């Protein structure tokens, strides 16, 4: 049975493996950090958030300062899709951001029906405006 943990990562409960939700590539032991099965690279933040104001003229340009912030991208080694993007100070250890209790997850889903796609739920509607 597959559980859709994020829009890019499933856990196969039978094999206890992470897999790419896009191409099905095996990403590793579900009891470990999924990032161990992904590829990672560091980006200068201005490669993504490019300066809107002329960087030759101004100190602050809408682009993050690379001394303060780098962007680490994680992609599937097979299909190259991004599974996670992390904003970190240079050199800061990446987070083990999702650590699930796999035994509890199996027990929980033993009582549930398998899904063929993630459930979105009712749309998010901000309450009506007042003024």
């Amino acid at each position, binding site marked *: 049975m597959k*559980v*859709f*943990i*994020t*829009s*890019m990562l499933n856990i196969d409960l039978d094999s206890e493996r992470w897999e790419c939700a896009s191409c099905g590539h095996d990403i590793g032991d579900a009891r470990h950090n999924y990032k*161990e099965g992904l*590829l*990672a*690279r*560091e980006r200068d933040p201005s490669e*993504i*958030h490019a300066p*809107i*104001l002329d960087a030759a*003229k*101004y*100190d*602050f340009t*809408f*682009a*993050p*300062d690379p001394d*303060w*912030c780098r962007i680490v991208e994680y*992609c599937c*080694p097979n299909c*190259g*899709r*991004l*599974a*996670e*993007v*992390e*904003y970190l*100070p*240079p*050199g*800061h*250890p*990446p*987070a083990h*951001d*999702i*650590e*699930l*209790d796999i035994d*509890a997850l199996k027990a929980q889903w033993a009582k549930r029906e398998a899904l063929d796609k*993630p*459930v*979105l*739920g*009712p749309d998010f*509607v*901000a*309450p*009506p*405006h*007042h*003024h």
Partner: protein
Amino acid sequence: MGDDMDIGGAASSAVESFLKETSLYLAPDPEIMENHGLEPRTAYEDQCIAKESDPVRLEIVRERILAGVNESFEMLENMGAAPGAKWGDCVSAVYTASGDLSLASSGGVVIFCNLVQYPIKFVNKYWAGEPTVGIKEGDVFIVNDARYGQAHNTDQSMMMPVFHEGQIVAWAGATVHEGENGAIEPGGMPSLAEQIWDEGLKMSPFKVAENYKLRRDLVTFLQNSVREPKLQYADMKVKMYVCRRIETRIHEAIAEYGVEAVVAALRMNLEDTDAEVRRRLSEWPDGTTRHSWWTDGTLRENVQIKINLELTKKGDELTFDYRGSSPEFTNRSNNSLDITVKGMLAQLFLTFIWPDIPRNQGVLAPVKFIFDTPSVLKPAFGTPNAQSMMTVFTAWSAGQVCAMKLLYSNPHKYTRVLAPWFNMINTFLFGGLTQHGEMVGNVCADINGMGGGALADRDGEHGCAPIFATMSDIGEQEFIEEEMPFIQIVSKKMMKDNQGFGCQRGGMGYQMVLAMRDSPAFGFMLTAMGAKFPNIPGLFGGYGCPTYPLSRISGVDVFDILQKDPGSFRYSIEELMNERPFKDGKYTTHPMTIGYTLAKRGELYMISQGTGGGFGDPLDRDPKDVIRDLDEDLISHDVAWRIYRVVYNRETLHVDELATEEARNAARRARIAASKPFGEFCKEWVKDKPSGKVPYYGSWADKSLVHAGSPDVVHPAGQVNPPVIMTHPMQAKIDRLEAELAACREGKS
């Protein structure tokens, strides 16, 4: 349940009453302030529930009282004089006799839901039996000091006991973000506060009305302490009559259904909410999600401040563990009280996760919190907190990310998983003399224009609502200009490329180009983080927001220019700053953190609201959506190619689907080629401490150790000694210049 895990043992009641009688000063009571959960059922509540327990009947009573609360909220919003009241930054509510918030108005700011309980509990505990105070029918109490229980000191709450046959059966309360409170800077949220005494009014809960009449001597004292005396009086009257309306509606409900039904409905509403939240939490997977984020300043200087969160869900309980976050800043105002963090998180659940749950404090009963004490999220008693939003919003967004990572897999959701909402107050605070000769100090409603986060299946909404008040409005600019001596020459115009990129993109933020016009003395201040390090990330492969500066053009009078040479004006920050159309202008950029500064007529101040985070890989975005954004001038050709890799005809905007697919496949292959297996990447990337290029506060790899500005010195978390004391920025500048001067002189001799 609901107690903090770091709470100490309770004192015995004899010791307690001795202390109560001999205390020279009744500071906020840790026993009250450390417990965000529900009070135990009283014997009277037990009796009432024994008599009235039919859920259908209790629901009818509940709806009846809620209708009264909603009516009172309409009054508050329509009659309130503060800009905050006009735009919905207020709430009214009914509390149990013990002080738990049971029913908040359907409109209004839910963060208050978990906060006004504390001052009511203080009044119950200290003033009920105090012969010089007491609690009688017709009394009204007031509070604004956040340490006794408010979101921040700029809010003021009034609280009225509701009696039935000589006994308190409920409390009514009304809260408004009033703005002005007599602090060192106008507007109620002073960045310059170095001590709590710079923060303005420090109202501990006290009685301000008797027999439903405000005491004029006390009102005058409060008016005399703030910059907007008329506002202070007007809104005290409004809040008192709002409480009175709630009282009337409760009395009517008692007359119709009996007091037992009313008391049982208020109590069961809390217990049922607690039970339902536990049931819903049981549906989440057990496990831990982690998220760290960094703010980039104290509002006085740019430094890197870590907010560290580990969210653990087990069974039907949830624990927010914020240990490892930055130490407190003992002479800065960007520290947040822990109760403010809790109040904000209550509204994460009530608005963004379970919007159908009754709005009361039962929602946090199954939730625990762990903080280092003291730290930037739980400062010591004497540490300023006037600008708590600078850290509490980041703490909230960390909670949003961690919760979404536990929510996505749930087969039953109550609303959708959402990428982070923009979270910073990219707006102007203002103060001074208006064109009508009145003294004012407050905040522009553009605070409410934060961009919404993207969802799995659609883009976020532009300029939508603030994270703390999803129903708040950005107001009518023309209306504001009638009252205030400044004009937004460019207003509510989306800022191109200011986008949280993703398969679904975040809702974008608009630009504000503003100039002061008709006042002898009027100024602005800005209090927003995020000029160096962005404020929010994206979700599941989406990107976050960019960074946001303040741009200024000084040495010009734009009103003269618009009259003499209107064609030279440009209607975006990008064009005004990059093209520099006014030859005498001085063009500068700054972090969005200037202290109160007097403005000159016609100088331009320019900022942008922020974008919500993107959801999913941008290379998966439907090319049609990219073209729509291009067509609407939301993105540039550069972004359409560099981020989204769409191939199209620049004149017709016709997409070449095959070429787009090829370009995207090539980009994915390039990504793989440029990346490394995680282990190998970490060997190169991970350093054992911060770089030292930027002053760093908070933990690095080990959350039990925190840095206090330097990469080489660490302290056990919560035991930073000496404490963090920042140098006055002006002094820092003088020191730097003197060192330079000394070096120059040495060079000469």
